[in-house]
């Protein structure tokens, strides 16, 4: 490998050169990011073709879905012509792509509203929930994994891994229902569904309710929105938590055996720092990969969780669209989710380099 960090290794480094060099690194990272974003284009073209084909292969007719079962064939035909559904598929596809290139995600067949406008609140709902779920998963998953690696082959280790096993094998809908039954129904501690108490008449700005309530300084709304999030976030975060715990454990175990961890101990470093500084940072790359993948999955919308907790998120939105044969919504919705997925993976790749100085981007 070509040394990227030329300054130090030539032995001629000075402060001025270091600054130049840091700017260079910035440029390289920027170039890499741009290249990765350009690579998004073929991905999106592929995605659009696949979703378009699948969507149109779904049996059923949007015109019928709009008009209902009792509509006359003439009325159905009129709607089909109006929506362009009587055109050959490839023409429909090119019309759709033409719209996309102009930044137009299309309109919902059912509500007649622009999708870009309509999907926003759902996306915000999903993101807010996914972030909290991921936060829970990361915090508990990593600490559980670290604990069981630190006390390898002890009762603590076995207990932690049994918890992880239960977590990964428990069906989300079952966990969600149990949570509702125990914490909402029986104990009455937390609300069982929705994003916020409708009686508050909360007017969202960004549709991230926690953020909005803070902007407004409405702490009562903040508290209420947060309480609404706890149960679905726990249900949603359980499987990622278990996966992260297992990945953390195996990655930590591997690193703990390495020479530099022994060196750290030989320096007199405390056990806490040995684990959380020297071992964890080295064990972090595979854990980070899992973060990215799980976050991507959560952003796709957790249909089951959203259904159980009546959470207005993209999962719900897309399922409704599929039921209504709302072609443009399905296509654009999936395209947006795919884009987010790719972006998250890009962020994860960039973070690799931040975690491990041996990983460098931008070299041809």
């Amino acid at each position, binding site marked *: 490998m070509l*040394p990227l*960090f030329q*300054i*130090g*290794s030539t*032995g*001629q*480094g*000075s402060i001025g050169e*270091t600054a130049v060099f840091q700017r260079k690194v910035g440029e390289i990272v920027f170039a890499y990011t741009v290249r990765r974003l350009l690579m998004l284009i073929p991905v999106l073209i592929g995605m659009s073709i696949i979703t378009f084909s699948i969507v149109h292969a779904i049996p059923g007719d949007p015109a019928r879905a709009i008009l209902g079962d009792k509509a006359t064939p003439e009325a159905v035909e009129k709607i089909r012509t109006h929506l362009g559904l009587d055109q050959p598929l490839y023409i429909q596809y090119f019309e759709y792509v033409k719209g996309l290139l102009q930044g137009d995600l299309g309109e919902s067949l059912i509500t007649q509203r622009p999708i870009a406008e309509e999907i926003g609140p759902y996306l915000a709902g999903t993101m807010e929930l996914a972030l909290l779920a991921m936060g829970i998963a990361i915090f508990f998953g990593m600490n559980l994994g670290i604990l069981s690696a630190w006390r390898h082959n002890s009762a603590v280790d076995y207990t932690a891994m049994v918890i992880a096993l239960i977590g990964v094998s428990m069906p989300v809908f079952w966990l969600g229902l149990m949570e509702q039954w125990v914490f909402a129904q029986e104990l009455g501690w937390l609300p069982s569904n929705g994003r916020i108490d409708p009686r508050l008449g909360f007017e969202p700005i960004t549709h991230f309710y926690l953020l909005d309530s803070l902007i407004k300084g409405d702490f009562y709304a903040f508290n209420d929105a947060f309480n609404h999030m706890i149960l679905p976030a726990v249900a949603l975060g359980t499987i990622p938590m278990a996966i992260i715990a297992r990945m953390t454990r195996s990655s930590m175990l591997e690193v703990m055996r*390495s*020479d*530099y961890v*022994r*060196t*750290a*101990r*030989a*320096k*007199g*470093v*405390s*056990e806490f*720092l040995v684990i959380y*500084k*020297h071992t964890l*940072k*080295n064990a972090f790359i595979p854990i980070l990969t899992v973060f990215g993948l799980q976050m991507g999955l959560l952003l796709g919308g957790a249909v089951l969780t959203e259904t159980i907790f009546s959470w207005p998120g993209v999962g719900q939105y897309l399922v409704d669209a599929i039921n209504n044969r709302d072609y443009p919504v399905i296509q654009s919705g999936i395209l947006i989710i795919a884009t987010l997925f790719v972006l998250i993976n890009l962020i994860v790749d960039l973070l690799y380099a931040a*975690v*491990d*100085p*041996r990983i460098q981007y931008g070299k041809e």
Partner: protein
Amino acid sequence: MAETLLELSRFKMHFHTDKGVVKAVDGVDITVDEGEIVGLVGESGCGKSVTSLSVMGLVPQPPGKVEGGSIKLSGRDLTRLKRKEWQRVRGNEVAMIFQEPMTSLNPVFTLGNQMVEAIRQHKEINKKEARQLARETLQEVGISRDGILDEYPHQLSGGMRQRVMIAMAMVCRPKLLIADEPTTALDVTIQAQILDLMRRLNRETNTAILMITHDLGVVAEMCDRIIVMYAGQVVEETDARRLFRNPQHPYTIGLLKSIPQLDRRLERLYSIPGNVPNPRQMPSGCRFVPRCEHALDICREKEPPLFSLEDGHTSRCWLNAEEKEEADRDTTGNTAPSS
């Protein structure tokens, strides 16, 4: 005479595994005086590394367990220390460098970060002063280029990394430096540089060095005194000159014979027959008996103690007992015919 710095007496470190107890270190007596360089020699699996890790308190317990004896550093028994107390000893009073410089530094932190951490663990100084001290210590080990503190280990060669390891170990001026095969992974010219460096640091700072190695060449060049270990026990101990001129224990003799000599032409290099005994099933009597050319009946029956010969030379071999008796007769009775 220098004060005794490190004293292991009858020290035993056993490992309790599913398949039985491994007596990795079984009743070892070692002393290191202040400012002295002592070599601990033996083949792989003889317990020399476990001995050194025990002095650092780095043997994982369990499965390891101290089964007896003591490790005294300046009179304080290290085997009784609590975890917090260990943290003040490690890197401060005793420091250690390892065999693999390529993997002994943490790849994801800068050298400055790792050195400053070692310093501030034991000294109450601010970051800037610590960086200055790190820079000075690196200069002492021959690394003086600018910006070194902001570099990562992968940007350095193996020899350079071992220098950094030595600097990191020496930065708090420990009284004892344990070097576990510090040159094994390096090529020969770099080996010589590292050994020179260690000898210079020993002279300048009066830090005692316990050198763990299987390389008798290194020992000959560096050490004042040499301890030979076999199967968890000390089998011979004497000063360097005497060990090479007049080895007593058959194992030591075998080790020395297996070094290639420039002035002797041999078809095949000598090697000690057989293998190191299985640590779970030590042979009865002398542990070296299955491989020994001079084995007597008593060797199979009774474990030999360490016999003291002249000038602090000790050897764990029944042959020495006989020689000693003969020698005693010679001096007291004057009856033996002169040869």
